[in-house]
């Protein structure tokens, strides 16, 4: 349980416990996960894969739900702006 994983969020290094979600890792860096169609900042709402407010770009793949994705060593996460 004590192992940690390092990843990058918008170019910033983050270290979190193994098994953490990308959403949790991102919250160490930013609360702005995506911009809505009218340009307001959004962050996770449901925490369980239903609302899609936590969508980010993970290793080049856009619109991935951060709350449903476990962190992997070396992962590159970007928000859409």
């Amino acid at each position: 349980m004590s192992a940690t994983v390092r990843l990058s969020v918008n170019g910033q290094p983050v270290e979190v416990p193994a098994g953490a979600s990308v959403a949790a890792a991102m919250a160490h860096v930013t609360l702005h996960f995506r911009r809505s169609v009218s340009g307001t900042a959004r962050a996770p709402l449901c925490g369980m894969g239903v609302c899609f407010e936590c969508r980010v770009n993970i290793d080049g793949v856009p619109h991935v739900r951060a709350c449903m994705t476990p962190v992997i060593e070396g992962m590159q996460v970007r928000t859409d702006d």
Partner: protein
Amino acid sequence: MTERYDILVVGAGPAGLTAARTAAAHGARVGLIDAQAQPGGQVWRHDVRHHAPREARAAISGLGQVELLSQHTVVAVEPSALRVEMPRGASELRYDALVLATGARELLLPFPGWTLPGVTGAGGLQALAKQGWPVAGKRVVIAGSGPLLLAAAATLRAHGAHVLGIYEQAAAASVHAFARQLVHWPAKAMQALGLRTRLAGVPYHFGSFIRGASGDDTLSRVDIEGPRGSQSIECDMLGVGYGLVPNVELAQLLGCALVHQGAHPRVQVDALLRTSVSGIYAAGEAGGIGGLAVARIEGEIAGHMAAGQTQAATALLPMRGKERRFGALLSHHFALDPRLLSLANAQTLICRCEDVTLGELDGFSDARSAKLVTRCGMGACQGRICGTALAELGRFPRNGARPPVFPTRLATLAGLTTFPSSDDY
């Protein structure tokens, strides 16, 4: 790629875990599918910092021969087969019998400020904390309705959050009457007592609800309406949820009949958990909100039934009846205050995917025409958030489910024979 199973179970919460293990014990080849990375469902969600409860570990380690298919999301259906998507790739899983244990999600109601970062569901915030979301030292307000608020607050506290208070919309008299009924469910009474002990010092307010949230670009303040008037509290996070709503979309897609009673449908089952479609069973909260004990006992019944062991299933029926009565008690004592349905004003966003306000929906009487004109419900959540809220607000009933059940890569759907020529996308 196609794989064959005797029995497939969708959902690895307490209902699905029990169903899969029970069915496998009869010698069937069983696949247990879940979209999450770890088994456990909602109540037994994997926690990065704390061990799972003993019964959760037992349920997971007891899976034996069951093939656990984590990070598999069911997105579409074919006759006797499910189309699943994984982070990389997709496949088709065939079955002779199917158990739907898709559980429930939170009922989230719109109010001014609910789209601000820092505002989440109550169970949602609990889930995020278990995933490792940094809450230590954060000032957190928990609000909404139902016993889940206590569970969420206890998890947050265990992760180091400073829980400023729990705001329950139900009146004190109603919650106390509920607590008195718990003598008939000693295990639940013990659990409630345990939670209250873990929450010593955290104020639990009744007849109180969140009217609005504000902050510059993230949450900094909530407005609370209580029996003695309104007040504002500064906080870093708000977790607010108004109870649970069954996940019926997959059942709907499979053609299973639903029970439309109140604002939110549930999967229709008979006493032995048979849905209206032969060979398909439903267990746990998909068939109505009832809590952990219902999920486990129904998982066992459905596991026996899917394996063709009707007698073993029938023996469990008295236990199911008792636990199901608890669900009725919950909905009675935590019925929503009608004032909650008028918190959103004309400018409040209802559809968070397409940024549609409540005012823009005036004049529409059904979800489909509203969607065609305003795009409400057309976004990635496929109306799970806004459609559910609008049904609760009494605007219009939820739309039928259409494939895919979740937004999907095109390649996943290639070759599907049952993909309709959709008329309302």
